[in-house]
């Protein structure tokens, strides 16, 4: 029991933090937070940040970063809407979006793994590139796909189960379970942990570190494309700055969750709860009657406080 507590103290701590926030919001605005509707609304918005953050967590555990995913979202989202509008087949558009995202991820991976550019720098570069490329190809204009709203394709990805529960929440849960199995129970997860922990040791133990990292970058490209399709469907359109607001929210979710920026250690459960915390703060603040400007202040405070606590726990001071 004691060792279980020790092993999962991070997960426990972050869950308690979420519980405290919910209790506080319920106290400040009971009419909102003791009503199911706000939670249904959360289930429709939080999954987008959460799925991205879950994917990126694996990359961070391997000691890499990807700052280009918002732009990869814009590019692969554009591939989706444009090919759908031209062919009338959303599934073809979906496939093309995944191919675009996967290719963008592969390019990131090749620049980092084969050329040797640090991932933070490489993905700043590709971030500009894909943002510019998508705006260029779209001539800076948005695309409307509201006609898909009643299609089975729409219901499959972002419909409402029984007319109530947002389907994207189930996709999010699926990703959380899949990635948790991958990281904690699969051979690949062990490889990811060792690559992030000590890449030289990983090599000396026969891990193909290049392949592991390439696969992770491709995976992040695919996840970005998937979320881009979901967001385009949910909003009924694609616009050239799509994805832009997600960068910092996604990183915040990951680091609030307790994943180490140094690599080698991370928790997908923490990331999921981190995404929920990030996602509920704005509603909590506004429904308590405070100005929306407080949102960023509180975000900032929670991020700094949580990463400081982790730094103290793990003694990462150099």
């Amino acid at each position, binding site marked *: 029991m004691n060792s279980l507590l020790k092993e999962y103290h991070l997960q426990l701590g972050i869950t308690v933090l979420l519980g405290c926030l919910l209790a506080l919001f319920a106290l400040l605005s009971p009419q909102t937070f003791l009503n199911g509707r706000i939670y249904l609304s959360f289930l429709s918005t939080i999954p987008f940040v959460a799925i991205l953050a879950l994917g990126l967590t694996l990359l961070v555990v391997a000691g890499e970063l990807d700052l280009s995913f918002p732009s990869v979202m814009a590019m692969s989202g554009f591939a989706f809407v444009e090919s759908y509008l031209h062919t009338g087949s959303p599934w073809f558009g979906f496939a093309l979006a995944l191919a675009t995202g996967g290719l963008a991820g592969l390019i990131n991976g090749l620049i980092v793994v084969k050329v040797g550019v640090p991932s933070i720098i490489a993905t700043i570069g590709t971030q500009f590139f894909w943002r510019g490329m998508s705006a260029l190809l779209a001539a800076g204009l948005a695309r409307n796909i509201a006609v898909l709203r009643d299609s089975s394709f729409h219901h499959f990805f972002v419909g409402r189960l029984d007319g109530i529960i947002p389907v994207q929440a189930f996709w999010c849960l699926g990703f959380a379970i899949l990635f948790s199995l991958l990281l904690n129970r699969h051979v690949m997860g*062990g490889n990811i942990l060792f690559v992030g922990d*000590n890449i030289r*040791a990983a090599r000396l133990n026969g891990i193909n570190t290049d392949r592991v990292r390439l696969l992770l970058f491709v995976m992040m490209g695919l996840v970005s494309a998937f979320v881009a399709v979901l967001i385009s469907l949910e909003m009924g359109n694609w616009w050239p700055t799509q994805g832009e607001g997600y960068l910092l929210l996604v990183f915040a979710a990951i680091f609030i969750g307790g994943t180490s920026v140094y690599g080698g*250690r991370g928790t997908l459960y923490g990331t999921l709860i981190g995404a929920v915390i990030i996602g509920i703060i704005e509603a909590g603040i506004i429904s308590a009657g405070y100005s929306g400007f407080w949102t960023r202040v509180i975000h900032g405070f929670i991020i700094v406080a949580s990463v400081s606590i982790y730094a103290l726990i793990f003694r990462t001071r150099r």
Partner: protein
Amino acid sequence: MMMTGSCDQASVPILSLRNICKRFSGTQVLNDVSFDIFAGETIGLLGDNGAGKSTLIKILAGVHRPDSGEMDVDGQPVDFATYAIGRARNYGIETVFQENSLGEQQPLWRNIFVGRELPNRFGLLKIGEQKKVTMQILRKYVGLQGKAINADSRVSTLSGGERQGVTIGRAMYFNARLVILDEPTTALSLGEVGRVLNFIRQLNCQGSACIFISHNVGQIYQIADRFIILDRGQVMGEYRKNEIAADQLSNHLLQLHNQV
């Protein structure tokens, strides 16, 4: 000086190297290195810094590929094009590297099985089994006297000797036929050194061979049956223990050192 021929050895060598050459960006690190290793013996590999010892064992371990030369395992030629750490391990060649080959933040059960996990048919790890074996290794090779080390302990909580115990225990558990130890005793206390030397004797008794690299001629002389002296990438001498005394061995090394 007598070369070890196959005349007095009835068996085929576990491993045999012929004319191994390796260059790194213009520097000849290994030049025509050849020797055999037989079951149950320990070879002491000696040489100054930069003699090529670490490069040589990294070729044996599958980390580096030689530019030319051949290697046989049990008399069968090894194809260097496909030779890598995993293949070396399949041959029963285990290496305890000088540099850290453990994941500091990972639990011991992951470190013991890294690169050769026990997955079920879905690729998911048999964690229970891996932890069980880890505990066996800890009891047998690391010594658990009253310490709170278990399969879930992180490497970062272990002492230098305990870490070395884990890497050596890992090598021994997987039925190594040839264990290569690169400076395994540098950071260890006297008691821990004794433990490492005992591991090597145990290995030899089981019929496994060992290559022991150290700067400490005294230690090497104590444990090895045969000595190979490497200098600037070349084998400069090969002796059996009964052919040379410890101080002669030291003098030989010093002479080579002074020639530079």
